[in-house]
């Protein structure tokens, strides 16, 4: 009988190979249907009127003129009189009409009066006079900690220390469980002291000082210290397919949705709860959500969002007709995704040989109206013996925060790796040596060392590195920078059903989704591997809540989940099949194996039957097996957590214009057992380019006067294009020491380091740190001017 484990390297037929994606043909021929492309019969065009003010109270809403426009089928006020709006672009009224043009005309006929309130959008300036927070946590503070991915032990201790000002209802507990909040946090909340809420709320919330060891003493006795200012602004996700939804009611009790989402199975619960809350009672089991393809998510498409509810409400009002709402690009950039900012003054103390002894940081940042938490700093070098940290969370009207690939890690990498690079410059040492020297302060020194050495080989770092400031003549200065990163990536909870039909066809069904990473293909590879069949013999059906429930694609958890589920399901189904055919081959089932489209006796030549013949013995219904992850009853755990990666950047900076060009990037990455090498490498290539994009171009620029985003379009919210891609070298750490760890996700890790590596390379080139990303020409010139000109 086959076991629940990954095959050894010498026995793999598909796993670890390079396979072209199964959905390639539909995607390259324009036949793949995204939410945006679904045009069911009788479709109504939905549109949303958005608030033009960054902070305001709705005074009155008059939709009467809009309702009278011929072709308008339903109007729904989303935030009526008395509601306070916290960012520009927030949803006020939704309506549905027979076409987009009429919907737009109708929006213009709506009259809304606002009481404009003061706004605040400056997150980059250090809030000097903020007082330390001690009072009880409001519900907003809790949600804020969740959305900023504060580690659960930290949430528990904060809750216990400061108390809470809101009741922990059963409903709240249920909701937290549905978002996989840990039981320890729930317990901490239930036993937290109840206090009355704080009366005044400043935009600044200063955390208590967090001290490890004796930082004062360590700085006093340090052989060397360095100090710097670093920062990463709010950026947006800018998915090429905007957020959107189609909703319709086939009958009064049932709702069908097609949300552009990275969380197909998460939609019914969220939508049911929200609709019930606004007077449209429905149970999650009466909601079906589907999605075949999604045009990007990057962390911004987990929630059902207000527009999904609006589409359901409008459809209900319009007699159940399908209503489609897609965000336009302005709304997409203003409201549908903001990565929290992080800025910090960091001081480091070290010995002369580069060994870091102490860390001191004063950090601040925003994730919108709920503030922004401290990224995990010092990043990776968590064992620095003496530390002092304090963080100020700033509530702003910048827009709502959403998880962005590797939440908080790219920020933490910039604040930490740039500080270490500055320390190396201060000591006159090669940062490569300083990083190596301090690897014992990290949780996986061996992996990082192997990766840094590999990166050195691919970049020729040791041969090419020069001390800070390129001394060569002429305006073009060249420099090298590096960074390391980490991520978890264990497979989430999920399941799938595998059926082997009597005609030999194989079908797998799961409610998971393919964000573009190649989920379908990975599943088919695992099943093909297990059953000894070629890739094209496997049909994979995903993206439907009628299939077994699978988790959202976030935090690099999908590949672990789907590979483990499908491996278990295929193993069980195969074992049933082997039991059926064993008598025919005259051996015990555990003497059989499935390979090259046959079922054959292990270690003997010739004794075999074809896959098709074997399946014909299954009886009329075939066999169906259920696989899930995790499944403690079927050990071992097939997925794992915790990877490391190292990246190096080679840049040229024109000190006359301030323009930075990346010449080459090297990414060395481990992720356990790789299923599809082709798609794994593609994740790294994509992440490097996305990293170059946020390092050099991306920023949600806010107008202090109006509180609105100044660049809500793709002309001024600049993404990296063809002209910006350098030579990219990707090396995956595979083989012994890596493979046997099991499958670990890869979506997040490679996007963490580019910002830090590029910033360090720029400093190495021009001899001075450009404190904040993106490293735009004006910032380069300003940094040079402060330093007194180029070298």
């Amino acid at each position: 009988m086959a076991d629940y484990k990954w095959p050894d390297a010498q026995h793999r037929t598909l796993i670890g190979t390079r396979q072209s994606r199964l959905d390639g043909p539909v995607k390259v021929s324009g036949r793949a249907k995204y939410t945006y492309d679904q045009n069911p019969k009788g479709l109504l065009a939905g549109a949303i009127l958005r608030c033009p003010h960054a902070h305001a109270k709705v005074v009155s809403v008059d939709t009467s003129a809009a309702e009278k426009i011929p072709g308008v089928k339903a109007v729904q006020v989303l935030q009526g009189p008395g509601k306070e709006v916290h960012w520009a672009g927030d949803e006020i009224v939704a309506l549905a009409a027979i076409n987009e043009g009429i919907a737009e005309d109708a929006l213009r006929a709506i009259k809304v009066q606002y009481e404009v309130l003061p706004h605040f959008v400056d997150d980059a300036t250090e809030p000097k006079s903020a007082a330390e927070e001690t009072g009880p946590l409001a519900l907003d503070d809790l949600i804020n900690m969740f959305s900023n991915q504060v580690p659960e032990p930290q949430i528990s201790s904060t809750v216990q220390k400061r108390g809470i000002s809101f009741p922990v209802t059963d409903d709240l507990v249920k909701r937290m469980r549905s978002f996989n909040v840990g039981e320890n946090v729930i317990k901490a909340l239930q036993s937290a002291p109840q206090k009355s809420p704080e009366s005044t709320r400043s935009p600044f919330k200063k955390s208590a000082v967090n001290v490890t060891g004796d930082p004062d003493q360590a700085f006093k006795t340090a052989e060397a210290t360095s100090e710097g200012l670093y920062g990463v602004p709010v950026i947006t996700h800018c998915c090429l397919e905007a957020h959107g939804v189609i909703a319709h009611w086939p009958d009064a009790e049932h709702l069908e949705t097609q949300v552009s989402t990275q969380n197909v199975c998460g939609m019914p619960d969220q939508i049911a709860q929200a609709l019930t809350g606004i007077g449209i009672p429905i149970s999650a089991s009466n909601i079906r959500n589907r999605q075949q393809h999604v045009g990007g998510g990057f962390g911004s498409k987990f929630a059902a969002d207000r527009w999904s509810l609006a589409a359901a409400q409008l459809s209900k009002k319009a007699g159940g007709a399908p209503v489609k709402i897609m965000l336009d690009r302005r709304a997409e950039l203003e409201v549908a995704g903001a990565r929290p900012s992080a800025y910090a003054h960091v001081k480091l103390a070290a010995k002369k040989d580069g060994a870091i002894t102490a860390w001191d940081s004063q950090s601040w940042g925003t994730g919108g109206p709920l503030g922004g938490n401290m990224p995990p700093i010092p990043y990776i070098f968590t064992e620095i013996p003496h530390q002092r940290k304090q963080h100020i969370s700033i509530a702003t009207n910048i827009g709502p925060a959403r998880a962005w690939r590797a939440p908080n890690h790219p920020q933490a990498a910039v604040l930490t790796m740039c500080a270490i690079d500055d320390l190396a410059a201060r000591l006159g040492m090669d940062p490569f040596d300083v990083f190596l020297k301090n690897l014992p302060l990290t949780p996986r020194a061996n992996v990082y060392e192997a990766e840094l050495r590999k990166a050195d080989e691919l970049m020729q770092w040791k041969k090419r590195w020069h001390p800070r400031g390129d001394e060569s003549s002429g305006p073009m200065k060249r420099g090298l920078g590096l960074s390391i990163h980490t991520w978890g990536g264990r497979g989430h909870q999920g399941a799938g059903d595998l059926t082997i039909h009597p005609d030999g066809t194989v079908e797998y069904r799961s409610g998971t989704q393919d964000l573009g990473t190649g989920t379908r293909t990975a599943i088919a590879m695992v099943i093909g591997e297990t059953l000894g069949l070629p890739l094209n013999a496997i049909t994979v059906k995903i993206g439907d809540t009628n299939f077994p429930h699978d988790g959202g694609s976030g935090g690099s958890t999908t590949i672990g989940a789907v590979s483990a589920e499908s491996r278990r399901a295929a193993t069980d189904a195969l074992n049933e099949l082997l039991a059926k055919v064993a008598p025919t081959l005259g051996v015990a089932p555990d003497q059989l194996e499935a390979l090259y489209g046959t079922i054959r006796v292990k270690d003997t030549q010739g004794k075999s039957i074809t896959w098709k013949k074997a399946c014909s013995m299954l009886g009329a219904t075939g066999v169906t097996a259920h696989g899930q992850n995790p499944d403690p009853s079927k050990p071992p755990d097939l997925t794992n957590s915790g990877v490391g990666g190292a990246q190096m950047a080679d840049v040229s900076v024109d000190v006359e214009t301030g323009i930075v060009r990346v010449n080459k990037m090297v990414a060395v990455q481990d992720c356990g057992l790789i299923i599809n090498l082709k798609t794994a490498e593609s994740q790294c290539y994509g992440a490097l380019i996305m990293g170059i994009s946020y390092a050099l171009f991306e920023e949600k620029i806010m107008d202090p006067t109006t509180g609105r985003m100044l660049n809500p379009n793709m002309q001024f919210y600049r993404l990296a294009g063809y002209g910006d891609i350098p030579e990219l070298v990707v090396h995956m750490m595979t083989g012994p020491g890596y493979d046997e760890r099991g499958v670990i996700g890869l979506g997040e890790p490679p996007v963490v380091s580019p910002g830090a590596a590029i910033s360090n390379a720029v400093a190495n080139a021009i001899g001075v740190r450009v404190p904040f990303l993106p490293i735009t020409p004006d910032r380069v010139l300003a940094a040079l001017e402060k330093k007194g000109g180029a070298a």
Partner: protein
Amino acid sequence: MKSVEIVVNGVERRAQVEPRMLLVHFLRDVAGLTGTHIGCETSLCGACTALLDGRAVKSCTVLAVQADGHSVTTIEALASEGQLHPLQESFWEEHALQCGFCTPGMIMCASDLLGSNASPSDREIREGLSGNLCRCTGYQNIVGAVKSASRKMKRRTAATAAKK
């Protein structure tokens, strides 16, 4: 309302359209060809690229009435007789896509490029496609795919010439 006649993928389409209707909406909503995507609606991303009289245009920047009397080719017509076009094949083989939302626009733009330059260099490919954005981002592999398609097309042309 204006009446227009546009030949889309070889089929003549007549329709009454509002003067403000964009060509991309004509293709998607009137002709039902949703392979031409909408990313930005402001001529910046290239997701909506189609061929107008054989040349690549961003169809969100052309009004349907401007295309009256002209012919348009969309991604759906690139494959012939169920056989993927070499560009489509190469995008697939070289993994030049992740989410795939930018892909139809990229391929249509690349087909225009290869039409005027059968063997573009890396640099020419980057320049030729510079109006198209990919967020996922496949640029590295897209350049590789266009090169591989150009080699395939040259081989096929040579093979057809040899037969004659």
